């Protein structure tokens, strides 16, 4: 059925190929859409309302480059683990180990952020003295882990439905506030003025890149399901590109409505900008719709994140980069159940000790490190296997412009993180550096060399 198999108690068990383009779209958009419901607005805090719009489009360009590059490489290296499998075949084992960790941290911390958002939203709605978000966080993470444990098809069918509902709520909000008229409900001219549009000047725009990433972070997660997609060469590029278009539209609508309804200082600190926008319209129906949609978006995102983080961790175990115990596939549900269970307490622990913008920053940091890798990876891919030497499911146009744009925007984003969150950045990179030393000088001895290269490709040029 697939090229991937894991041996459990003498029986060979593989991941199931059951997913289509709609599931790929649901996985990508489902993970990301929560970024419209919280997180993107912290870019207004760092640079003002206009900076949040500028980064919405410029970071959209970054992610369009990511989607183009990713579609080419993934449609050619269709293996569980996504970018991890790409790094293993194109750059080398240590890079693959790091990329898998980027994926696991980016998705696990995104899952943590989702759970915190969900818990805080319920607590805010309930308005009960002494009620904390902890039980809601625990219930969310444990329930979704169980869903993932039971099977990928059910997990992504659920994601498709709740993502679609959350997306439609943004469209309904947008058209309910008469977006073509200013003054009745929306008051953009009075809230974003020449005096406050860029309160920190252009350095604030650069600083805002950090949370601008949150508009789209996770779209590259579509590749994690590569081994469970029926037709990877068609479904992955189609699902990823459709997801990116969907998100660009949602991000533009979200900014326009929110910036037209609340002052930038408030927009920059609220945990639920779209729910607040619903409240400020004065319509109880919209308020309740956006409350429910915020919960659904958080659920869909956390659900997809558990799916992706577990597959990246599973891949590490399968290649013996980590103990092979993690590479077991459930004999009945055909899911990487040990990886799902292992990551569960880690997510729970951080959901209880981190706050929302800290968890988001951890996730963004790992994401940007991964995008930096992707910009170099595509250059190496084209150099080692030029066009025509291997069969590609999709070939992205304008190479190397998307890779150069992506690399430059990653450098700007590192600088943006430095502006306000520099210590956190240095601490995270120090961790990746130390764990890389551990892998290179110790753990790699347990890895079979030639077996890591599983693609039926010719020898790379230059080797």
């Amino acid at each position: 059925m697939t090229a991937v198999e894991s041996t459990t108690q003498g029986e060979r068990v593989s991941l199931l190929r059951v997913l289509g383009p709609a599931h790929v779209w649901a996985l990508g958009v489902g993970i990301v859409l929560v970024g419209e419901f919280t997180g993107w607005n912290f870019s207004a805090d760092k640079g003002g309302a206009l900076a949040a719009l500028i980064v919405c489009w410029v970071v959209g360009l970054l992610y369009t480059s990511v989607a183009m590059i990713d579609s080419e490489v993934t449609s050619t290296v269709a293996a569980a683990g996504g970018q991890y499998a790409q790094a293993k075949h194109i750059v080398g084992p240590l890079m693959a180990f790091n990329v898998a960790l980027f994926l696991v941290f980016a998705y696990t911390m995104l899952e943590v952020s989702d759970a915190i958002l969900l818990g805080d939203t319920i607590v805010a709605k309930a308005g009960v003295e002494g009620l904390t978000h902890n039980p809601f966080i625990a219930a969310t993470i444990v329930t979704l882990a169980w869903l993932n444990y039971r099977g990928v098809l059910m997990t992504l069918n659920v994601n498709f439905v709740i993502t679609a509902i959350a997306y439609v709520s943004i469209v309904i909000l947008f058209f309910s506030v008469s977006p073509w008229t200013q003054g009745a409900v929306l008051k953009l001219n009075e809230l974003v003025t020449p005096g406050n549009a860029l309160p920190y000047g252009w350095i604030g725009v650069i600083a805002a890149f950090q949370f601008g990433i949150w508009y789209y972070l996770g779209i590259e997660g579509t590749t994690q399901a590569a081994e469970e997609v029926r037709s990877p060469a068609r479904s992955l590029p189609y699902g990823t590109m459709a997801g990116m278009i969907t998100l660009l539209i949602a991000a533009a609508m979200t900014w326009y409505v929110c910036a037209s309804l609340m002052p930038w200082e408030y927009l920059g600190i609220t945990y639920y900008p779209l729910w607040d926008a619903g409240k400020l319209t004065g319509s109880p129906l919209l308020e309740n719709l956006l409350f429910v949609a915020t919960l659904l978006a958080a659920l869909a995102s956390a659900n997809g994140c558990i799916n992706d983080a577990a597959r990246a961790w599973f891949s590490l175990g399968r290649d013996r980069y980590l103990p092979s115990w993690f590479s077991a596939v459930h004999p009945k549900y055909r899911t990487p159940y040990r990886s799902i269970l292992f990551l569960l307490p880690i997510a729970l622990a951080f959901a209880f000790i981190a706050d929302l913008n800290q968890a988001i920053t951890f996730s963004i940091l790992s994401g940007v490190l991964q995008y930096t890798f992707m910009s170099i990876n595509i250059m190496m891919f084209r150099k080692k296997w030029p066009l025509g030497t291997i069969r590609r499911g999709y070939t992205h146009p304008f190479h190397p412009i998307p890779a150069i744009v992506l690399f430059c925007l990653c450098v700007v984003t590192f600088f943006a993180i430095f502006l306000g969150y520099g210590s956190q950045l240095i601490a995270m990179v120090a961790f990746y550096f130390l764990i890389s030393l551990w892998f290179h000088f110790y753990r790699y001895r347990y890895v079979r060399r030639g077996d890591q290269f599983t693609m039926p490709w010719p020898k790379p040029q230059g080797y």
Partner: protein
Amino acid sequence: MSRYTPPEQSKAGQIFDIAVVVVAIFVALWLPLKLGLAGAAKSIDALDAKTWEALGQNPTMASIWEKLGYTPETAHDIIQNRFHYIIDWPTLIIMAAVLIGYFVFLFRASDREYRDVINEKFDDK
């Protein structure tokens, strides 16, 4: 090239390695929180006069703050809590050096490992 045969890892060794990874994850993510290194570097520029005008809010903005349940006094710490973008050059240089050093090490060490993989994979054929 002779085929590399990795040693079998004992169960105790696997458990130890899992423990190392878990500890590393918690140190990397929890320690910055504990040491106060995570989160935004912001500070409040306090104002003596706490009015909507002094806080730079026009009547539309003030009406929205009030709709959200804020007064000039309660909104003061939100509005005046600002980033101060002064570039600390030594920290920026350290950050750049750490990042560049990390990526250089990653690509160089990966390439050494990759050559072994390619040699074993393709010399076997």
